[in-house]
């Protein structure tokens, strides 16, 4: 798992099956909660198959415009397809799993 704020997200070195990108505006309490929740869910269900990339928009505001970010925190599932977008602090675990398709994936690999 790595934390990156590179605008080009050139981080494909470690090939993980799950690539998530979390957009934050600095580590506000809500962003911290969101990250912790997400990290917990991923660790629990995806073990080390998951990479969460954190993008701080304050460091590069242009990304917000390019990626059409309005709400914070925003999570983008880059892979596996289909791409999904979630906003919020991910307190509802079931909802997160469902939206990201993790449950389905788990069933399939079982």
């Amino acid at each position, binding site marked *: 798992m790595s934390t990156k704020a590179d605008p080009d997200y050139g981080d494909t070195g470690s090939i993980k099956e799950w690539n998530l990108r979390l957009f934050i505006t600095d580590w506000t309490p809500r962003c911290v909660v969101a990250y912790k929740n997400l990290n917990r869910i991923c660790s629990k269900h995806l073990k080390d198959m998951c990479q969460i990339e954190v993008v701080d928009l304050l460091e590069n505001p242009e990304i917000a*415009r390019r990626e059409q*970010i*309005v*709400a*914070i925190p925003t999570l983008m599932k880059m892979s596996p397809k289909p791409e999904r977008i*979630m906003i*919020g602090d991910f307190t509802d675990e079931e909802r997160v799993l469902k939206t990201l398709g993790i449950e389905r994936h788990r069933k399939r690999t079982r």
Partner: protein
Amino acid sequence: MSNTRKLATLTVLEKVPTGIQGLDEITGGGLPKGRPTLIYGSAGSGKTLLGMEFLVRGSTQFNEPGVFMSFEETEKELTTNVSSLGFDLNSLIASDKLAIDHVVIERSEIEETGEYDLEGLFVRLAAAIDSIKAKRVVLDTIEVLYSGLSNTGIIRAELRRLFRWLKDKGVTTIVTGERGGETMLTRHGLEEYVSDCVIFLDNRVTLEQSTRRLRIIKYRGSAHSTNEFPFIIDENGLSILPITSVKLEYPASTERLLTGVKRLDEMLEGKGYLKGSSILVSGMVGTGKTSLAANFVDAGCRRGQRCLYFAFEESARQIIRNMRSIGINLEPWTKKGLLQFDAARVSEMGLEKHLLSVQRTINKFKPELVVVDAITDFNNLDSLQEVRQMVLRLIDFFKIKDITAMCTSMSSRTGLEDTGVGLSSAFDTWIHLTNVQDNLERNRTLVVVKSRGMAHSNQVREFVMSSKGVELLDIYATPAGAFMGTARLAQKAADEAAEIIRHEGMTSRERQITEKRRALEARINAMTAEFEADVKETEMVLGQEKARDRILAASRKALSNHRKADVTADKRNK
């Protein structure tokens, strides 16, 4: 001195000019500086264009760069849409005078779980503002957030925070909103957050002509007009039609302008129209309205005044030709550039465009005299009420410009009170022309119904047009009736004949009287003489009597002396 000035700047709400024609006038200087203004209206009412023009004019005219955050149209769509208004957004963006950010929120793509905020929007806005040092911001239409996100509680809280943040940033903001239902101005109650200035845009379609209107619903700390102002969007952007009727502060001139018709001047105190006044010439078809207008213009050009003639019924050539037949040659004036005709079919454009076109032409040509022939041509463009409003605005505009204006009006009925648009009170001078048909001929009459600021004749005059020009004649009024035209001539001849006979009769009777008087005088003289003779005789008789008395007394004394009467006894007797 410096103290009072400081006080003034503290209390007066600072405003930012929009540069949009007419808007700064009706808002008394523009939008509240550093504060948000809500512009709402239904779809297609011109909110986006108003917002964009606010930014374009801000950056080009007032050196205030602007950020346009669009929630609906893409940058490309915006650029294309406003290019027809002559705004080149690409070059403004390239020169860092404008930044556009198109915000896309697709609800179907976004899942919500738990709490979030709209900090992403803040980051984008802040970045855009900082990138060009923007002073103006437009959010069009931020209500889209409500359809893109489901947690309205969060949206409301974040909007409140956004507007506070914008105020802190000190940027002058326009927030657009969709017109709401019955309980709210906007669909999602944006007016709750924007309390300084609220403007409503409306687009109504009446008689197949769409009319755009603007109204200031609220402007905290600033006097504003509550009127509805028509506006148009054309190749010059947005234009709000002038203010007018807000204040009646015109220069009131006492200078006079001759009418071009000698007898009409005489009816108006011998001096003609008041400079800067508005004159209504009403009458049915063929009563000579255009001829009177041509005289007005001709007289103006003779004085070297620039004249503008709006002809909605005939072409310039037709008018020049027709007027030549009554001895008025307008052609030299047009060649000299003193007279300009502006002929257009009324149906070519809507009422507002006409009003604006008239104003633009006037601003360009700068005439002292204007003729609108005829204002009633506007009647079929809109409801009578709208036309009335327009004519009022037009008159106000003329007054502000100190233009002496003559408007002709086609009345449909023969009644005097019918001006065609029911606007007589708006005009200073009202001349009514009629056609009177009698004895198989039609004759024209003219009457000055009213003329403010002067004593005017109340007489109806016969209005005669010939190759020699326009003339006013007295109507031949006798106890038997009033006569005009041929009847006037006939009656006059008959009356003159009768007069001669009567005159001759009169002289013979005069002679008799003189004779009688002479006889009477002779008799009086005779009687006076007789009387005087009587008096003399009486006096003579009286004198004789007195003489006899004296003689008698004297003789009595002599007698007593002679008798030697006792003196004392005599004395005692006395």
